[in-house]
């Protein structure tokens, strides 16, 4: 097992690590398929309200490649198709029947696997609604099946610090996971399986399959960060990546010919140690989150997720909900206090003297100001970018300089915005720059 070393990243100890017990949640009344957590997609609806759908019926596809289907994770009736502003598709909601009827696909056994051409295999996965679990760096778009990737990274840990533990996700599914790896081998010879060092103990049954251990500093387990630290030449930039659960579901789909509907989710809130929850993909947020104080932010990754409407459903790629409290109101002379209870990665509050578990609320702690070139963003960036200089290049519309400075290596971990004392939305500016560049390239 190889290791990568990473000194920069998020070093605070957060409270609220989920418990390693697993509970199964009751069957939800509705499930949803969100279009918001799928990057770059231009969805094209394939169903209408009140249509009957089976588990595995395509609900919408991607206009850029209409063979990529997003399928229903349950059997029932299309209850509602929710649009946002400018008729942007937000989600398709399905009210569930008591029993599942599956759309049946041809199963692919491990013996068949070597016989099928990889193009046909990709088409099969696209129809089944699981191809999109494979994504392509640097834009993190759906993998391009026409291209041959230089390598595929299997990221066992999810996007958030408290994403589901891979040891629990892979519990009793090692065989499927291994099958999944052999599927990936059909697309590329070089497959890297990466896990956090502190996940390794529970991952013992899969140990022989793990090839890379990454340190326990967020975001060392992010595919972009891993790639930055292992790549040796420019052509590796177009690597593909996939999550642990995505790979297992891909394998389950191929083996059974049915769309797998289970997913594992963690919910974090304050000091709670909630168990891992096994539920149906696309479950309603309210079912998962339980009660939460008004004014809380619900996110799918406190540093790199998105805000979740409490009435929405879990997205295709989302498996963590963080419930972040609102601030206690404006604090009098807040900037002059010693700050024993103010977690910071800087050394400007007394809290930095103690290595305690900390909690952070969902507020800015200050107001936006001009960049003062303090380099806090550079000092925390896991891929050695200088976000302040890239931000200035992008604001000045100089995409060339931004690219030269390594913009596309950015792993969108959110740490530059997290640490910025001027509260500049660096992550958004960099992400927009990358997205604009990707859109440009696609033509």
């Amino acid at each position, binding site marked *: 097992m190889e290791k990568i070393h990473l000194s920069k990243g998020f070093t605070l100890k957060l409270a609220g690590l989920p418990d390693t017990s697993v509970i199964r949640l009751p069957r939800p009344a509705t499930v949803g398929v969100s279009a918001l957590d799928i990057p770059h997609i231009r969805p094209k609806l394939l169903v209408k309200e009140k249509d009957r759908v089976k588990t595995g019926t395509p609900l919408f596809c991607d206009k850029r490649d209409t063979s990529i289907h997003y399928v229903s994770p349950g059997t029932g009736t299309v209850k509602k198709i929710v649009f946002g502003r400018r008729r942007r598709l937000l989600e398709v909601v399905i009210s569930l029947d008591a029993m599942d009827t599956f759309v049946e696909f041809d199963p692919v056994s491990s013996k068949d696997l070597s016989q099928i051409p990889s193009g046909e295999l990709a088409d099969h996965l696209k129809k089944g609604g699981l191809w999109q679990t494979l994504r392509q760096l640097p834009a993190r778009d759906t993998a391009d099946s026409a291209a041959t990737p230089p390598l595929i990274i299997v990221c066992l840990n999810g996007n958030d610090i408290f994403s589901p533990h891979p040891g629990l996700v892979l519990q009793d599914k090692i065989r499927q996971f291994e099958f999944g790896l052999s599927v990936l081998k059909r697309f590329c010879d070089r497959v890297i399986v990466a896990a956090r060092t502190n996940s390794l103990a529970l991952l013992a049954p899969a140990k022989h399959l793990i090839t890379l251990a990454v340190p326990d500093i967020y975001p060392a387990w992010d595919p972009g960060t891993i790639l930055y630290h292992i790549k040796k030449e420019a052509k590796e930039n177009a690597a593909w990546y996939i999550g642990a659960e995505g790979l297992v579901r891909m394998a389950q789909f191929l083996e059974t010919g049915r769309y797998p509907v289970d997913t594992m989710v963690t919910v974090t809130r304050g000091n709670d140690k909630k168990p891992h929850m096994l539920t149906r993909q696309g479950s309603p947020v309210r079912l998962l989150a339980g009660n939460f104080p008004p004014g809380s932010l619900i996110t799918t990754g406190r540093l790199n997720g998105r805000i979740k409407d409490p009435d929405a459903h879990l997205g295709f790629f989302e498996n963590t909900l963080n419930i972040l409290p609102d601030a206690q109101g404006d604090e009098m002379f807040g900037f002059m206090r010693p700050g024993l209870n103010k977690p910071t*990665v800087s050394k400007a509050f007394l809290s930095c003297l103690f290595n305690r578990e900390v909690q952070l609320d969902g507020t800015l702690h200050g*107001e936006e100001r001009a960049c003062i*070139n303090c380099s806090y963003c550079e000092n925390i960036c896991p891929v050695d970018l200088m976000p302040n200089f890239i931000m200035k290049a992008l604001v000045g519309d100089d995409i060339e300089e931004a690219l030269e400075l390594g913009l596309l290596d950015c792993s969108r971990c959110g740490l530059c915005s997290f640490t910025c004392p001027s509260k500049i939305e660096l992550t958004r500016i960099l992400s927009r720059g990358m997205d604009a560049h990707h859109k440009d390239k696609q033509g």
Partner: protein
Amino acid sequence: MNPIKKIFELLEYDFSDAGKFAKLGPLFDATKTFFFLPSPKTGLGPFIRDHLDLKRYMSVVLLSLMPVLFFGMYNTGYQSGLARGETLDVWTAFLSGAWVVLPIIIVSYGVGFFWEILFAAIRRHPISEGFLVTGMLFPLTLPPTIPLWQVAMGISFGVVIGKEIFGGTGRNILNPALTARAFVFFSYPVTMSGNVWVAGADAVDGITGATALAVNAEGGSSLFSTLSDQGFSLSNLFFGFVPGSIGETSALCCLIGAAILMVTRIGNYRIILGGIAGLFITALLFYFLPGTRGTWADAGPLYHLCAGGFLFGVAFMATDPVSAPGTDPGRWIYGFLIGFLTVILRVANPAFAEGVMLAILFMNVFAPLLDHLVLKHRISKRIPNV
């Protein structure tokens, strides 16, 4: 409810866009956020944010200035006592010094904030915290005898020409406090250079005396003994019991401030250590040059370090992140060259006894170039991804 909060809520409407004092909105906003630290909800990821903000950032700089400020007040009183031939006790010296120093600080803050508010009101942006530091740094670089109208002129120049015409905090090329000082230095040389007036020695005239850096030994005697004769022994220079500008006399207090800045990582240690290294090495080189006996070339690194405003400048002025380079190698070079240029100006340039102000301003101008070179180098090291 908190009574102060009530006042702000009562006044809120008048200062909003629809109210009668809409133009003064930024002033209201600055006052309100001074009392109540705002913490709006994050609308964009990441959703958790560090507690450090610019208010805290600048407060730490102010905190690091407290030792030099209080010692400066004390020393001003103490020096004026000495000049009258009295030895004052600590409190009398401190109070009489504060009586001289506080008006200078009040004028600096008052006039400076006037310009800040004016520009903020016209440009409709919030008042930046950066001026909290500028408004304190500038008076500390002035001799206590400076006429208050010159303080007002200086801070006006520093804020308007040094900062606001570039677009405000974060966009200025030169350190505004040093720009202000340079303006006063070149415009009113009589009050500023060479000899200092010891504050309050006499109601009308004051007494003049040379600063340490203007001293040169004559007739082959050593610089050290001449300095010592005039009260500038190394220990006096280190502890700061010498006449000079308000904040810069005590090397010890500057070092305490520098330590606060370095420990809290608010000031970049690379600049401070690089500067001290540059000064040491250059001073040593001159020390070993033959034929310099009796001049400051012969002074050696310790005297160069403790005399004049070098430590004050390198700790508080050079570490201004906006006008310093934004890359780490750039900061080392920047700091080193400030130390180097300070000694060069002190030793090799007969026009200026002190060099640190000009050294820092000069390197401010070169900071973007240093950054550019470092960026080019870093780009060449990266595996391209375009």
